[in-house]
């Protein structure tokens, strides 16, 4: 538009990934993993946690909690971090990433919470969650359990409704009055819902860090700090930016979509600043607590620490450079490296840097790993179905018209994709040219 440099790839509209089958070989492999995970979960409910996992008295928490929940919900905080950039700090171009952020967040949280139900030893007692006077208000774990399920079930689910409603709107003109009515209602409550969607993750992502405060000295001094809640929250912000932008770039590569380097560069700029801020706090905290000399011991803790720092620094540096050059390749690698660094950080206090006693060891059992992978596959499979059936992935405006032509001329028999019924392309009679290839 006016004043902005011309950008042919400007993301203006979310468009479904059309022309690719949902059921592919990869998708079938995911299904196999999911099925295995469900079968083993059933076995776990009967046999108990011991036979299926490497957890023991010293390491009471295994990867189901420490990886699938603690690490992957940090990657899935996109709805929180990208959303705050868009809605609170009004970075308008970030809106084009919002649907990706909301979808990845919802899937990460839903799969994590499902696995939390499997991991809990006495899940039938979860019904206490509906009696607020039974909560232990000062327990970080209660805060996490209540906030997370509330967040995933209410604000996050509701925020994910617009693409579904949109699909219904295009699917059948008879549904439109109803859909529009729901949409109007939704819009009127949106400020309250969206605010809740920033308050709750802010609370539980920091409480996830507060969980390990109670473990005291048993967490290595490089990680144990009163600032754990802030650092956990900070790691979640840059990791989730990496997850959202990185996934979007990967999708663009896979399905040959144009990349809007304006949006991606702005996301990379925000991410790199988040990384530098987080690293600064992390290092300052270690220095001021006097734990810095433990980083130079020759042991596994120092190794993990330097790996984490090296990955985040490398990622942050690549992102910073890609902001200047607008080159997608270092940007993508930067997102991956920084996210992996953040993942190692989030994984450490509970597992890698947790030393309940000198001889204690934990390594996940095979079944435990399969179930963990199965629930990750559930998220990936859900993502693949969603981007192929709903308008999630951002694209230039012409992609929408390309899709129109595709369905009109090449696959006229597809009704169920829903987007092109009869002559309805947009809200009005089609005025713009549809055939501009």
């Amino acid at each position, binding site marked *: 538009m006016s004043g902005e440099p011309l950008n042919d790839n400007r993301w203006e*509209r*979310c468009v479904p990934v059309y022309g690719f089958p949902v059921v592919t070989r990869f998708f079938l492999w995911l299904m196999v993993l999911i099925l295995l995970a469900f079968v083993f979960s059933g076995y776990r*409910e*009967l*046999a*108990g*946690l*011991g*036979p299926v996992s490497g957890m023991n*008295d010293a390491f*009471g*928490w295994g990867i189901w909690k420490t990886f699938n929940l603690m690490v992957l919900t940090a990657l899935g905080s996109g709805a929180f971090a990208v959303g705050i950039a*868009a*809605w*609170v700090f*009004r970075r*308008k171009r970030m809106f084009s990433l919002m649907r990706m952020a909301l979808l990845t967040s919802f899937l990460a949280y839903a799969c994590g919470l499902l696995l939390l139900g499997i*991991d*809990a*030893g*006495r899940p039938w*007692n979860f019904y*206490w*969650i509906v009696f607020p006077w*039974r*909560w*232990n*208000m*000062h327990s*970080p*774990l*209660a*805060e996490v359990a209540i906030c997370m399920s509330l967040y995933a079930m209410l604000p996050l689910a509701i925020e994910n409704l*617009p*693409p579904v409603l949109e699909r219904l709107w295009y699917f059948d003109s008879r549904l439109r009055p109803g859909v529009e009515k729901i949409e109007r209602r939704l*819009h009127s409550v949106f*400020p*309250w819902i*969206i*605010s*809740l969607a920033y*308050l709750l993750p*802010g*609370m539980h992502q920091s409480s996830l860090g*507060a969980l*390990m*405060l*109670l*473990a*005291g000295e048993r967490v290595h001094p490089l990680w144990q700090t*009163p600032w754990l*809640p802030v650092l956990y929250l900070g790691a979640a912000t840059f990791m989730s930016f990496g997850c959202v932008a990185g996934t979007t770039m990967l999708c663009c590569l896979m399905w040959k979509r144009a990349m809007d380097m304006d949006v991606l560069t702005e996301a990379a700029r925000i991410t790199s600043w988040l990384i530098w801020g987080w690293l600064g706090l992390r290092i300052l905290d270690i220095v001021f607590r006097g734990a810095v000399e433990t980083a130079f011991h020759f042991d596994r803790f120092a190794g993990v620490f330097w790996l984490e720092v090296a990955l985040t620094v490398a990622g942050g540096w690549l992102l910073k450079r890609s902001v200047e050059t607008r080159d997608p390749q270092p940007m993508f690698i930067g997102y991956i490296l920084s996210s992996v660094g953040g993942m190692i950080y989030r994984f450490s206090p509970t597992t890698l840097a947790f030393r*309940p006693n000198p001889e204690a060891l934990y390594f996940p059992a095979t079944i435990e790993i399969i179930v963990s992978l199965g629930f990750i596959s559930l998220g990936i499979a859900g993502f693949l179905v969603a981007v192929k059936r709903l308008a999630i992935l951002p694209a230039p*405006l012409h992609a929408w018209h390309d899709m129109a032509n595709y369905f009109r001329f090449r696959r006229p028999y597809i009704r169920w994709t829903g987007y092109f019924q009869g002559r309805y*392309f*947009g*809200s*009005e009679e*089609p005025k*713009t040219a549809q055939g501009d290839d």
Partner: protein
Amino acid sequence: MDITRRQLITTIAKAGVPAAVAVTASATPTLTEHIPVPSAAVGLLYDATVCIGCKACVSACAAANDTPPDTRGDELHQAPSDLNELTRNIIKLYKPEDGSPGSFSKRQCMHCLDPACAAGCPFQALSKDPETGIVSWTAEKCIGCRYCTITCPYHVPRFQWLGFNPRVTKCELCRHRLAQGLKPGCTSVCPTGAVIFGPRTVLLLEAKKRIQQSPGRYYQDRIYGETDNGGTQALYLSHVPFEKLGLPELGPESVPARTLRWQRRFYQYFALPAVLYAGLVQVIRKSLAGHEHELHEDEKRTGLRAQL
């Protein structure tokens, strides 16, 4: 209408922010920094210098709690290597390499005055009795999250890893026996009186008397649990450093008070989150209005339905 409502909310926010900050900063010291001792606090006093390591208390404990003896070691003797889902009480041996004096150590729940397990327990399955101060586990409230096994600084609660209905096992000071007027299993069989049961105040006096009678006999002339970790109801006397008995030096402040101070202040009366929420709603209403306007413009330009 719109302006008055905005004014109203802004006014509330303006009044609410200082109020919330004041609540957060001030009201909590009473909650976290003063730990009340239960009125009828009972406890154990274990004197490591008297213990002969006969392990009578271990089998008496299992018998008193209707637990089958843990003979998994050699299929014959009840000799568990550590606390576990069948063992609430255990005698361990500290034997230094250099031949300096060793010691036995009795390990069971310390019944802290400010228990970390109960502080972390999400649905109050682990709770401290307001009168006797006994920390006990309620099966109906436990979701099996195993956070207690992570938080307890003494590593006492143990989770049952086998079976579909796992339980958390820890010493509950034989509260079912106390209700019948009996003493806890371990104290009722101890042949040397190394572990005795009584009100915490009485046990403290007794321990102080022992220290006074034989100065230099006890490590640092100190009772572990008088103030450690905010005070515990199981008290220890020892001739070797307490750390060798498996009792870490935690300082006089309890673990929850020390580590969850800011967490607790932040969520006090939910004041700060509520204020934050009110502020967010204000900001987002404005953003939403702007965003919807932009979407409308785009809709007119492209002729396609707006996507939120």
